[in-house]
């Protein structure tokens, strides 16, 4: 009888742990090793002797597993990339299953990747899944004298309230000017898009130009590359390709400036 009980308990444990037995499309159940990915990848960043940083920029990977895999191969073939930035929309439908599939794929990257949250990532229970797997929506880190600021600009998903994007937080991040050389802002929805809260565009622009330290503003969402100095404030806006376009961008940043390259 003891053996029987043991077998039953074992069977129940197997059933609970096997990911094939999904309870709901909308379940929030990231595996424990897939938690806090952004922070863990930031800790993996290596510090080199040169003063030039080289970053690969991808985005809007959604359900484009094949082309994302191709891009990963291309990035892995480039030496001296410091890290990869994902401009959001990791997944298409906000499902746990997709989050797991996409992270397992992006883990094939030789370099650490850091992702900002996109609007598709937030659908249904996606916000909770993103928080558990990647961490906070707004976060920043310093790397070789530069400050990388990741800001949630998915206003529609938060009902166009006054907290998204969090302008106060952004200003606060930019204000400690003595501790960084350049600031690079990463967000998913660009300020001119209808998914951006129109009431906050001016505040956003004011915050960015206030300390004259923002070198570059990177966004996703459009799926196609864009580059322009939108508001004649000296801040260039760089839009990333969706991985479905089979293209990505590399950016080199040094003390005096930056340059970018489109790679097919």
């Amino acid at each position, binding site marked *: 009888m003891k053996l029987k009980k043991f077998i039953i308990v074992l069977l129940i444990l197997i059933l609970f742990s096997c990911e094939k037995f*999904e*309870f709901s*499309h909308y379940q929030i159940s990231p595996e424990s090793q897939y938690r806090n990915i952004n922070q863990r990848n930031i800790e993996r960043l290596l510090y080199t002797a040169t003063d030039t940083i080289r970053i690969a920029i991808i985005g809007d990977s959604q359900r484009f597993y*094949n082309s994302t895999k191709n891009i990963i191969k291309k990035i892995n073939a480039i030496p001296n990339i410091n890290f990869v930035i994902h401009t959001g929309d990791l997944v298409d439908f906000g499902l746990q299953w997709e989050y797991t599939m996409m992270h397992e794929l992006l883990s094939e990257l030789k370099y650490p990747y850091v992702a900002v949250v996109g609007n598709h990532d937030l659908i249904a229970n996606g916000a909770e899944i993103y928080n558990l797997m990647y961490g906070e929506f707004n976060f920043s880190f310093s790397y070789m004298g530069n400050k990388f600021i990741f800001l949630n600009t998915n206003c529609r998903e938060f009902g166009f309230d006054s907290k998204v994007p969090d302008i106060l937080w952004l200003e606060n991040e930019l204000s400690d000017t003595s501790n960084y050389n350049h600031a690079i802002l990463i967000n998913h929805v660009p300020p001119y898009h209808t998914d951006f809260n129109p009431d906050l565009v001016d505040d956003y622009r004011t915050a960015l130009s206030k300390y004259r330290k923002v070198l570059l503003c990177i966004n996703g969402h459009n799926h196609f590359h864009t580059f322009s100095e939108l508001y004649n404030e000296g801040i260039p806006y760089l839009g990333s390709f969706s991985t479905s376009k089979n293209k990505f961008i590399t950016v080199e940043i040094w003390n005096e400036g930056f340059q970018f390259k489109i790679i097919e």
Partner: protein
Amino acid sequence: MSIRNSIIVSFIMMCFSSGLNAQEERTITNKWYMPDHIRLQYAGHIGLISSGPAWTLLKNNFELAYSIGYVPEFAGGRDIYIAAFKGIYIPKLYFNIKKTIIKPLSAGAVFNYTFGERYSKYNGSKNYPKGYLWWNTSFRMGLLLESEIYVKIKQKHMKGLGFYIEASFWDLYILSLFDNHNSSYINLWDITTLGLGIKIYFR
């Protein structure tokens, strides 16, 4: 009132949302619209646990099942409630071994609906006008394969027990596979969801 009747009545109420008196109950139990078994299922995208009535129709060739499922917070991150509807074709491919009947493969369709504004708001609300997202976020459908082992039981209120395993393939997962055909990354097993269940036959 017997346990059997109370179960049946509760399911009638659940299905047709109408009350019945005791006399009607007795005359109604053998009508065609009465379910002939109850399903109890683990996983399969219709709840950690789901249960509901099922009907065997068209000379045992077709089964309809309706269920309500629940995912508790410890398993799904938050409480999730799901209604599901299944239609399954059962080919006459039975293997009889004494009191056991093996139905190796049935195929069908499954639909589920996840309750809650957080799932329905994307298809027509203030911030999400109809068509903003092309797919419906509350309503999912899928294809179903099922294998069952049926054991005859001679009891007053139970005729048999069925043990089944099902594999389901759902719309958004199928689309993800289809859009990445010839993929070295995503395959049929990746989009497979499994479920296990028991059928309690009382007719």
